[in-house]
């Protein structure tokens, strides 16, 4: 059973990543990168430069491993599933920072510090939104959170949750308005000095992370594997795919503002909004 579930998780991650590649229309650029040679920077931190893409990919895999594929079935069926995902988010910020810090070059370093400054305040709304989703379930387990949505999905019961979590999803996948790490305005930032296969793996990890964060959002807000007629995993795939497409669409449509203004938005608007969200969700559950 565990072997089958592991296979399903890996297949979902792979299939989802291919779907993300299609959404981004990135097949040819990614394939071409594997044939290019590597370009070295002066005195890089080799360990972190080589491992950062692998860590990003590993965090995407851990994230999707805690997602229940059927109402009572998750590969990592932990009583603290959403805290595991929270740890993944925190480690993503560290990974992106190290990816930008390790080449020892100006643009990646600017991207790394910009992302650390934006990523840390993004974690706070994320935590409040996830804790709010845990309230009706009275548990930190994702299986219990799915179970609590049998009658009404969290997206209806807690309407602010999904929009706030979409901001987190954009930040965790370095996309559109929240892409302060790899943005075009600083010559692709943390990946400016990436080349060859290393660059391709980083981009693939970014797309794999889109699958994981969308699967978590589908589980927490859209009832995950719950749904009529079709089997659980199919519902999870449909919901995850829809959220991936929505994230890519928002990323392409919404403009990015300056980091300083985004910091103000995060601390002054989104953080109080997530407090309010937690308060309302708590009062409803009382």
């Amino acid at each position, binding site marked *: 059973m565990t072997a089958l579930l592991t296979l399903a998780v890996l297949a979902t991650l792979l299939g989802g990543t291919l779907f993300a590649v299609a959404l981004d229309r990135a097949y040819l650029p990614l394939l071409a990168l594997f044939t290019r040679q590597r370009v070295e920077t002066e*005195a890089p*931190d080799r360990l972190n430069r080589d491992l950062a893409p692998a860590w990003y990919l590993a965090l995407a895999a851990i994230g999707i491993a805690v997602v229940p594929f059927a109402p009572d079935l998750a590969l990592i069926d*932990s*009583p*603290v599933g959403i*805290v*595991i995902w*929270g*740890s993944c988010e*925190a*480690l993503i*910020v*560290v990974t992106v*920072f*190290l990816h930008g*810090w390790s080449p*020892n070059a100006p643009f990646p*370093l600017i991207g790394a*510090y910009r992302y*650390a*400054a934006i*990523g*840390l305040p993004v*974690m706070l709304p994320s935590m409040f939104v996830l804790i709010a989703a845990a309230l009706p379930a009275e*548990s*930190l387990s994702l299986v219990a959170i799915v179970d609590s949505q049998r009658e009404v999905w969290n997206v209806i019961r807690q309407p602010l949750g999904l929009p706030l979590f979409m901001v987190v999803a954009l930040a965790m996948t370095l996309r559109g308005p929240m892409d302060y790490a790899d943005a075009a305005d600083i010559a692709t930032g943390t990946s400016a000095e990436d080349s060859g296969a290393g660059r391709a793996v980083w981009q693939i990890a970014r797309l794999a992370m889109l699958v994981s964060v969308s699967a978590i959002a589908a589980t927490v807000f859209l009832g995950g594997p719950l749904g009529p007629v079709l089997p659980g995993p199919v519902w999870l795939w449909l919901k995850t795919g829809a959220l991936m497409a929505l994230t890519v669409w928002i990323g392409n449509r919404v403009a990015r503002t300056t980091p300083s203004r985004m910091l103000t938005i995060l601390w002054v608007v989104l953080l109080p909004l997530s407090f309010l969200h937690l308060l309302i969700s708590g009062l409803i559950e009382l």
Partner: protein
Amino acid sequence: MTDLMIALLVAFAVWTGWRVFRVDSMVRASFALMLSFVAVGAIGVLLSAPYIGVATVFMMAVEMMVMAIFMVMFMMNPAGLNPMVMVHQHRLSIGAGLVAFFGLSAAVLLSPLPSNPVAPGTDVVAQLGHELLGPSMLIFETAGVTLLATMVGAVILSSRQGRFGSADEGSRPPGLTEGGDPAGRQPEGGGGHGHHHHGGH
């Protein structure tokens, strides 16, 4: 099996902890310390304390990210990639290290350790929650308010709009003698902002 994994994680935690003092950059030191705590968190998970273990990973990832930023910010080595020596005050730190090592070892060896394994199926996370928000409430609330005060203090100290006006305007270094001229290089010419410097724009 669990014993072997705990032994490996302990070895990893000790090795990464040792690396903190042997690497030559603040960023490497911060994240070596983070890896050490991640191993400790994994040991917590193996000891049937899932919330404490996973929360340790979460807290340490955020904390070490903040620490790396702040340490690099206050160092003379802006990127954190230039080599620097991580150890200083050798005698004092060796003494403190030995005292801490023997003290903790004595505490481990001399205190009677409990041996009551958690029954499988116990809802340990809920029990921890009841403990934190029940008998231990006062301790955690005190710690929470103290941390909040520290954070407010840190923001005030590092804010650009300080108590005495904008931080980047009209600041004068203190004098070399009591009431003397400010230290450092004096601006050239009276009042001018050196228009000849703008040639390269």
